[in-house]
């Protein structure tokens, strides 16, 4: 029974659309996070002195602290963007796919 339902959903062009859109969105967001974080780790590993520099001459705020603080905030904003889009656009698409499959299945 549910295997038939899955078959119906899979054949719905909207399902392909959902998978494609959401997949691309999720992987782009992940790539941004991973590149930023591991880029930072590589700087820590190979160019640590760069992070110890003050942002401006005589300032106590160093580049490393500023960059890290930015990442704490930025990553959270990324999660917010993802949740808004996934809970809105993607979820309504998902509901349509399930409803259409249920209609057809009957």
């Amino acid at each position, binding site marked *: 029974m549910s295997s038939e339902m899955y078959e119906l959903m899979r054949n719905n062009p909207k399902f392909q659309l959902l998978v494609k859109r*959401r997949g691309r969105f999720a992987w782009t967001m992940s790539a941004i996070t991973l590149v930023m*974080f591991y880029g930072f780790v590589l700087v820590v590993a190979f160019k640590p002195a760069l*992070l110890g520099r003050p942002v401006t001459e005589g300032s*106590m705020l160093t580049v*490393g*602290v500023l960059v890290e603080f930015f990442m704490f905030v930025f990553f959270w904003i990324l999660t917010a963007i*993802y949740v808004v889009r996934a809970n809105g656009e993607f979820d309504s698409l998902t509901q349509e796919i399930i409803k259409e499959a249920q209609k057809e299945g009957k």
Partner: protein
Amino acid sequence: MRRLNRICTALSMVALSATAFAGPALDGIQAKQPTNWHAIAMFCIFVTLTMGITYWASGRTKSTADFYTAGGGITGFQNGLAIAGDYMSAATLLGLSAMVYTQGYDGYIYMLAFFAGWPVILFLMAERLRNMGKFTFSDITAYRLDQGKVRTMAAISSLTVVCFYLLAQMVGAGQLIKLLFGLDYNIAIFAVGILMMVYVIFGGMVATTWVQIIKACMLLLGGTLVMLLAMSKFGFSYHNLLSQAMQVHKLGPKLMYPGSLLADPVTAISLGLGLMFGTAGLPHILMRFFTVTNAKEARKSVLYATGFVSYFFNVIFLMGLSAMIIVGKNGDFFTDGQVGVVGPAAKLIGGGNMVAMHLAKAVGGNMLLGFLAAVAFATILAVVSGLALAGASAISHDLYARVIMKGKASEATEIKVSRIATICLGFVAIVLGILFEKQNIAFMVGLAFGVAAAANFPVLILSMFWKGLTTRGALWGGYGGLISAFLFVLFSKSVWVDVIHMKAPLFPYTQPALFAMPIAFGLAYIFSKLDGSDRAKAEIEAFEDQYVRGQTGFGASGASKH
């Protein structure tokens, strides 16, 4: 009658722990500090409150779904707080503030590594976890593979992670209570272990979640208060704070440079990998995704959790920095009463992990110290409860109900097995806690993450994303990752030299993830590809249905009605 029994048991546990605390304080030999009645009072209020919740929860814990996942009825916001609670352990509060105090900027890097895994979990895993899982994450890995073999493997690696992590928590608990109540370390360990067992056995996931939520609120409040009071001494100026810190700290102008913790690139990268992907492989964190109603709430809970965690890590950073001046320059906090060079934590009363506590006392007196100590204790209790529940469910749901009874166990016996498993885990935690007294706790959490990243994460992510994964591949990947991560840890300096007292480590790095993760992924790939059996073909075909369910949530277990 059974309910009466429960009340009696709960009451006698409270009484037992109360007398345990009162005991050594009377002779007063071990207590270097006078007994802190504020702390004791606040701790008793917390225990009474949570015992009340446990009693209430015990009436609502009837089915296995109630016991493992609170019936799937937790909202996104509640779960977000609970996830943050699970994640902000005592090791976070005590260990990371101590790390900032001793090593400056390195502590902040460590925190970002702890944090950066969350967005990725949300983007790639959260909704599939909710859509495919029921009680444990092995529900997902074993979805289309051989139930018996794959679940056994997942349960073993879950239990390994749970034990490592529990260990870190127990050691933190012992040290904290030793300092605060002037209590013997071993008795403190027993008290924590027993309270943990009461929460989990009687209240299941409902009680564990609410203990977690209350504690997360207390932690956020207490941490913020200490940070604000500390920052007021510097006129809320980061510039003032840091210029004074650089003057007093042994690292001097190098305070904000990445330093000894991440001295070589291999350790830095390996630590980053371990913390990031380890988060995505912690059984007690993964389990939290099954407590919400649907994928929508699962996503929301990650949003709330990352907000709280990100905020709190920055609070801890400021706490650690201000402690350099406020604690480091105050002789009262040192065993010899002398102010030396700030940095080495060896002479701090109660050891290096007590920086946050001393700071609370310095800025807010005994009242605030009492509150923060009660919070830290509550934190430990909440986190060990979550861990114990995750470990117990690996034993009862995966091993007992699915592997041994092949799905034919009744709900009542499954819950009973879960409760027995909780008792066993409690005693394991107590024994290991006593054995590992002298280790740095933040560091041990790092080890737990390494094992989670190499043993749980690769098989979980492959089962969700890679069609070609077969039972044989999953088993090789899972066991390969577990054994290699375990051996790398065993042969590293932290165990081989510091615990077993051998002369030189056999493995030069302390972080296993960079080496163990490729082994796990490689083995899973190779042995899936080599698997040409009919069984493997059927498993690969079954991916299609799993994929649609993961994407749409159709057929996912919903919230049970109360």
